[in-house]
């Protein structure tokens, strides 16, 4: 029973961290209509920034800054926001597809850097010994899991409230106006490019924060955590939840993550060992098909409420 509670806390923490990423994407896509296919790259930038700044000295890479965890999170947001802002600056005056292609490129390059710039990122072995909040509780796993859940839930709540506030503010109204009728918004004197870059940068910063929180939650990061599958899962979560709604983004995340984990446990219990890799691939096929079906039959998702035309 205690184990089950501990697992529930662990599951919920993981889901909520993914939920923060989805909230970031919802600001970029749901509110502003900016297509980001490099989510994994931006999450990785945040995770690595915070990890490098807070870990103790390591022999084979730069480090030993020993910053407090919170400072690492703030730095992660700043650096990821900057990276996203630059990406937006380079592409947002062009057609929307160019942003998509460039973010895809960003993810490829981040993956290259995490794998190969060993002096900075530790290469394929990643960064270990990332300080975890409440490490002193690690003796009693249940208390530790719940303490972590409390931290993650608090961060999620803050991000959620901040984004809700932003989307209702005049700033958020401009974004919606730009999405719905760009010409009308521009004729009212709003610079489409500048607002979009801001939204993309803030969304990126939220993703970076989620990456950092996740790094400190697990205590270890490696390039393999940030493959295109992550990008894809986040998109599925947002589309199931309903783009445009922060509440939908969080609910969609929890539902899709539960399906994902459940399907994983199911297949690893039933499939023979040499079929494990194959059933994992089949899981991704299922999510891909689901994403396409939702786009076709229910483009507003399931939990977003009805968007007025």
């Amino acid at each position, binding site marked *: 029973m205690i184990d089950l509670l501990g697992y529930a806390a662990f599951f919920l923490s993981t889901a909520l961290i993914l939920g923060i990423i989805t909230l970031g994407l919802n600001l970029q896509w749901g509110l502003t209509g900016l297509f980001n296919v490099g989510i994994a790259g931006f999450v990785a930038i945040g995770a690595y920034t915070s990890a490098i700044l807070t870990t103790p000295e390591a022999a084979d890479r730069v480090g030993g800054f020993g910053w407090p965890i919170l400072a690492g999170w703030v730095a992660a947001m700043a650096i990821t926001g900057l990276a996203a802002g630059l990406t937006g600056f380079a592409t947002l005056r*062009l*057609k929307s597809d160019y942003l998509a292609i460039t973010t895809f490129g960003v993810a490829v390059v981040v993956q290259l850097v995490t794998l190969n710039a060993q002096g900075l990122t530790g290469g394929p072995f990643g960064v270990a010994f990332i300080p975890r909040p409440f490490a002193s509780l690690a003796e009693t796993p249940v208390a530790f899991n719940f303490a972590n859940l409390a931290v993650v839930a608090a961060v999620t709540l803050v991000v959620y409230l901040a984004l809700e506030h932003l989307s209702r503010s005049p700033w958020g109204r401009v974004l919606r106006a730009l999405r719905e009728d760009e010409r009308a918004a521009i004729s009212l004197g709003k610079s489409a490019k500048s607002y979009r870059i801001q939204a993309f940068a803030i969304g990126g910063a939220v993703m970076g924060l989620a990456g950092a929180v996740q790094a400190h939650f697990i205590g270890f990061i490696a390039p393999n955590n940030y493959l295109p599958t992550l990008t894809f899962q986040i*998109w599925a979560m947002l589309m199931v939840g309903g783009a445009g709604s922060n509440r939908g983004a969080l609910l969609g995340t929890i539902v899709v993550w539960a399906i994902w984990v459940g399907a994983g446990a199911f297949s690893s219990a039933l499939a023979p060992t040499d079929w494990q890799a194959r059933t994992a691939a089949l899981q991704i096929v299922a999510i891909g098909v689901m994403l*396409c079906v939702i786009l076709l039959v229910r483009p507003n998702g399931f939990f977003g409420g009805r968007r007025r035309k």
Partner: protein
Amino acid sequence: MNLQFIADGLISGSLIGLGAIGVTLTYSILRFSNFAHGDLMAWGAYAALTVLGAISALLGTVAPIGMLSFGWPLVVAALVAMALVGGMALLLDWVLFARLRAKGQSIIVVMASFGASMALRSLLEFSFTSKPEYFSRAIQMALPVGFGIRVTPDQVAMLLVTLVLVTSMHLFMSRSQTGREMRAYSQNPALARVVGIDVARIVRATWLIGGALACAAGIMVGVLVQIRPLMGLDMLLPMFAAAILGGIGSIPGAVLAGLIIGLSEAAAVQLIGAEWRAGAAFVILMAVLLIRPAGLFGVSER
């Protein structure tokens, strides 16, 4: 300085260019960047591998042509696979893309292609596992051609095939009725409809040609390197970069830009290190977007 990297760059660049033709056609005619294009390549390579397996199961091993590593069964398999992948592209369009295009938001189509790409790739991983496959395991000697450059007979053959495909594509687009209609539609869809161009036919032709060329490029990568489910994903960024550098809609541009990117990748391998190869395409992409977003041969959008 070793000039080998020039030959390597030209060969991989011609494959990038061949793939980029499909990307640039889809973009200019159907108005979306197709993230599933790389996976059509991978499907093409696996389709050819399957057909090849069937042929050799029926007829036993066939002697290779001349100094090449493969015989006529691969040529037959390639043609069958090109038809299959062209058909698959049509099917994808019918099931998914056409319905979303009808809703009018092009970025939704991009997202669907992203979802389809992930599903297609994982389906390959499910059916064939991620273990690399080869058309032939025979080892080929590289022959010296001067200036310290060595090439294998396979590489020369693939370069010639690419040349033939690109030339015939160019002739098709500039001389044939369908090709002219495709160009007309990409330049001005409304006017093209007015003069009675059958849009559905143009769309079908675009998918068939794009799919078949992607398949050809995938098979050639399979002959020269290896076949993996991720091979298409790895080619996607260079292909997009080539399509944009060449100027969206321009076939000669895509091919030339493919060569430029292939050469820069090879130069990056030579000068910086093999592990940074994939970064070259991104650097070029960013440079084009910042300096000349219309590309080499493109017209700027109004």
